[in-house]
């Protein structure tokens, strides 16, 4: 098989395209190991269900103040105008509360899903949404295992609403509004590593008060928002069967195969084409 000029350019073209595109699609979820993320620790045993976090969140983010009150057994959900809600649960130890909002995963599914980096994990640890990049495809919503991003379905210029750990306050050196205003000190803000230490300390000091587990330490590959509770977490409506691997891991294998296919396929296809060239003669009755 002689490689003439024409074929040479064909191969060259395909290889060039391969290199250009193959590089662009290489998958690399940001490794979070050497960065110190901030987070929030929520202690359900201290929460009194006063909803101050809800109203201060609404105020800080220009959203309508919450009007509905907490009722035991009724699950309120975050939506496009409520970034956080507190629900009451009838548990084995009586009534207990649980605050819900974005978990700020170490390796978030939403940022791995986002094709424009509109969903973005900042170096501070907050997962934020950037409207100038977002094209409204809602793949973040499909991917998020906690169902956190919410979409304004009744707007011609819809936004994705979710807790962003009050990122603009963080950059001003302040702490998130919900943490600052919590009268029961159920919420604390700090470096994730310190928060885990603090949570461990509380469990060790009062083992009878706490379930021996920090929800979010391992869940979904580790989250920035961490939970302590007095009862098993499934009694508080949290998904306890969630995987401890991060969610972007699920599509990593596929993404890693892309450059391989891009290099191998054109070569194999060209090879087969050359090998079958002589079939031209006996075309009428193959099969």
């Amino acid at each position, binding site marked *: 098989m002689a490689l003439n000029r024409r074929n040479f350019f064909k191969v060259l073209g395909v290889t060039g395209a391969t290199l250009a595109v193959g590089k662009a699609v290489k998958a690399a979820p940001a490794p979070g190991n050497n960065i110190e993320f901030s987070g929030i620790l929520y202690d359900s045993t201290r929460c009194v269900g006063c909803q101050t976090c809800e109203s201060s969140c609404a105020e800080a983010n220009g959203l309508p103040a919450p009007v509905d009150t907490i009722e035991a057994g009724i699950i309120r959900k975050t939506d496009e105008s409520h970034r956080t809600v507190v629900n009451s649960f009838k548990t084995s130890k009586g009534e207990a509360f649980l605050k819900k909002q974005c978990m700020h995963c170490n390796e978030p599914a939403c940022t791995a899903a986002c094709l424009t980096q509109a969903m973005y994990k900042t170096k501070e640890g907050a997962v934020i949404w950037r409207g100038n990049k977002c094209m409204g495809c809602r793949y973040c919503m499909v991917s998020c295992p906690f169902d956190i991003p919410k979409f304004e379905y009744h707007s011609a210029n819809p936004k994705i609403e979710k807790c962003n750990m009050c990122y603009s306050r963080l950059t001003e050196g302040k702490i998130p509004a919900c943490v600052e205003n919590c009268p029961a000190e159920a919420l604390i803000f700090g470096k994730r590593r310190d928060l885990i230490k603090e949570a461990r300390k509380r469990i060790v000091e009062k083992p009878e008060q706490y379930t021996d587990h920090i929800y979010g330490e391992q869940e979904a590959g580790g989250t920035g928002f961490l939970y302590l509770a007095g009862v098993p977490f499934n009694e508080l409506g949290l998904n306890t069967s969630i995987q401890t691997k991060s969610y*972007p891991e*699920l599509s990593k294998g596929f993404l890693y195969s892309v450059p391989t296919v891009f290099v191998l396929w054109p070569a194999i296809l060209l090879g087969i084409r050359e090998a079958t060239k002589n079939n031209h003669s006996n075309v009428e009755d193959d099969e």
Partner: protein
Amino acid sequence: MLKMMSNTEVTIAKDNDGKSIWQFLIGEFKPRGKFLTPFNIISIPVILLGLAIIVVRFWKGLGSVTNLTQEVPWGLWIGFDVVTGVAFAGGAYVLTFMVYILNMQKYHSIVRITVLNGFLAYVFYAGALLLDLGRPWNVINPIIGNSFGTSSVLFLVAWHFLLYMVAQLIEFSPAVAEWLGAKRARKILSGMTVAAVIFGITLSTLHQSGLGALYLMAKDKIHPLWYSEFIPVMFFVSSVFAGLSMVIFEGSISHKVFNQISEKNHKAHSGIIIGLSKICAVAMFAYFFLQVLVFVHGKRWDFLNTPMGYWYLLEMIGFVLFPMLLFFYSYRRNNVLLIKVAAILTMVGVILNRLNVTVIGFRWDAAIRYVPTWMELVVTITVIFTEIWIFRWVINRMPVLRDSPSWVDEKN
């Protein structure tokens, strides 16, 4: 013979009557043939209604015309228009693989129409994707490079859609050149075919599977009978027989509706369909075997005796195993009619499978299930009808089904 004569006349007229290219194009844009056909009578009101709904959608937001919820953010427009439509467009890469890579010249006569079908499918289904975007003005962000989300499967799929459309346009462009009588352009463009084919097959492999990979992160949301880490492989393998079934289905309609196919190709068509049925059967066997492996390996017996389990069995036995056997049987018996029946059953099965992953099995345990509104349905049908209109327009003007004009060198 008469038809061939008239064809030649048209070509000569096009080349020599001294009309400017603009006069020629304006003439070509005028409608041809009878206007009040049954298809037109049905499709025109539907398309007008669909356009009105699309206006409302951009004016009042997605929620005004769709039943999408915060839990089910992707509905019929993604699950059917995009995911299912692209699977059916898979015939283009399979056929170009057979003809240009495996040199199976027997199928050469249906390459053009299949590529055209594939190209239009991508244009319209990517178009349907735009309807579903909340902020479509930002759609250029992942393309112009100011914010590449390279870890996103959707980023890959979006780029592949775009590049594959270009590849298909190159594959089809010789027909456009023949229509315009551009001899030199045709020579250059047909020289690019093989490169476009190789690039196109590579892209198709990745984005057909990529459409499945989109759902990999929705692990906790899809019914376990349909979720596995092999979704991408399943989507790829099923796109082979989905695409070929579409080719069989579309071919048998085209051969009835359009009376411009040469006698020779008309006669060869049965042979083509029988050959395709064999490939379908083998691909479906591989697919079914993979599904059984995933099912057994995932220890999913407990799910079988549930409503979703029966639904799964219906899909796997009624619309994969049965049409597969039908393909085998009718291939051995040379029964073209039964092959067409099998192709339709297979297409139903592919629609079921894609919808089961994306819509029906997605949030299958939710208290309130997503059911599309009639408006979502109308827009979906509008997309399909508009595509058929363009398809018909192209076929009536360009040498897609009929033979190329006489000046074309037959070797290409």
